[in-house]
């Protein structure tokens, strides 16, 4: 059997040794590489091939079953959170407290100094920064019930690029949509 018989995109050099047949039962199946490649061939006929990504990474079926058994035993963990802080009518303060963001983190979004951002608490947010700050507050309000203020901060600042980084380069609407998606419970 040659690589040419596989669908485009599913074959790569080296897989020849992984093709299992009834005479090679001790050879690996491909699952350990994160891929399941199955070929059915009848002499004289073109092989029928199925390929699927192994959604359990390198774990293999046994470990996935073990995880499932433990998950059925403990599907969730109950943790109560303190009530979320109330909005204060001070936009900068709300983003700082409810979003759990430091003045340094807020400053970085707008590429300004930490001192300037902290000054917004007393002086008010400049008009040209208000829309982004209001969006940040709206995102924080959406997420804080489930995450707490520390969790909102992590949700915004973790990852590369982080959601704060993305807001800084103008992706406010996309990040707001991600927060909004948490209000629903769609199945995939």
């Amino acid at each position: 059997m040659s690589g040419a018989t596989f669908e485009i995109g599913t074959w790569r050099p080296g897989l020849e040794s992984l093709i299992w047949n009834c005479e090679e039962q001790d050879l690996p199946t491909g699952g350990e590489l994160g891929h399941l490649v199955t070929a059915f061939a009848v002499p004289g006929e073109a092989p029928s091939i199925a390929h699927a990504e192994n959604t359990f990474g390198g774990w293999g079926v046994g470990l996935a079953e073990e995880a499932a058994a433990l998950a059925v035993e403990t599907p969730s963990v109950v943790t109560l959170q303190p009530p979320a802080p109330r909005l204060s009518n001070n936009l900068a303060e709300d983003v700082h407290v409810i979003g759990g963001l430091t003045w340094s983190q807020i400053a970085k979004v707008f590429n300004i100094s930490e001192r300037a951002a902290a000054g917004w608490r007393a002086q008010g947010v400049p008009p040209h920064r208000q829309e982004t700050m209001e969006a940040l507050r709206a995102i924080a309000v959406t997420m804080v019930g489930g995450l707490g203020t520390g969790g909102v901060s992590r949700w915004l600042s973790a990852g590369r690029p982080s959601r704060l980084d993305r807001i800084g380069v103008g992706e406010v609407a996309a990040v707001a949509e991600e927060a909004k998606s948490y209000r629903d419970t769609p199945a995939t």
Partner: protein
Amino acid sequence: MALNFDILREIPVGEAMESVFYRAVHIPARGEPDPLFSLPASGRWPTAWTLYTGTTEPVAWAEYCRNHAHDIGLSDVTGGVGLAKATLPSYAHLEVAKALPRRSLYELSFDFRAMADLTIPWAEDLLARAGFDLGSFYADQRSGYGDCPALAELVSQLGWEAIKVPSAAWQRPDGFCVPVFETGRRRLVKMVRTLESASPSVALAAATSYASGERPVWLG
């Protein structure tokens, strides 16, 4: 390709005696969670109002995990070391919550008059004959969920209040998804909040099937 409506009409619908389904619900900053909230035209079975539920609690949490794989990835409890066979039992009961919002868990009881069980062989055969690719049940969002949205467009004409379908997130024989449609809403007989605030466990996150290429690295 359009689905054959006449064949789809042959799919049997049945009454389901009061059945309990599970749903993980958003916790707002103030006030009570709304277990019947649904964004219009979202998810695998988009209609004006589709309420996604699972037949078991693990299905409800697994769907939550699969939907938010990125934030599961940001909620690594191993500090970058990753989960392994030897460590799974130790971590299994921990919460995945650093960047994944906690949810309330609700039990919703329905008394459907017309629920189509699309998991039985008879229904699968009719679906296939109607032009529905059965692989669509597991198709990813990036592929548009296969033929599922096209079938969802027809549920109102077919008179289906709800459907029982495989769960892409919990690909095991002990759990299914039950999307409830607008006409099924009136069959709701009871709603109970069983968990006020909870997170999926590490074991549940590890047992979840994620969309292709989206499984968080730390889960192994």
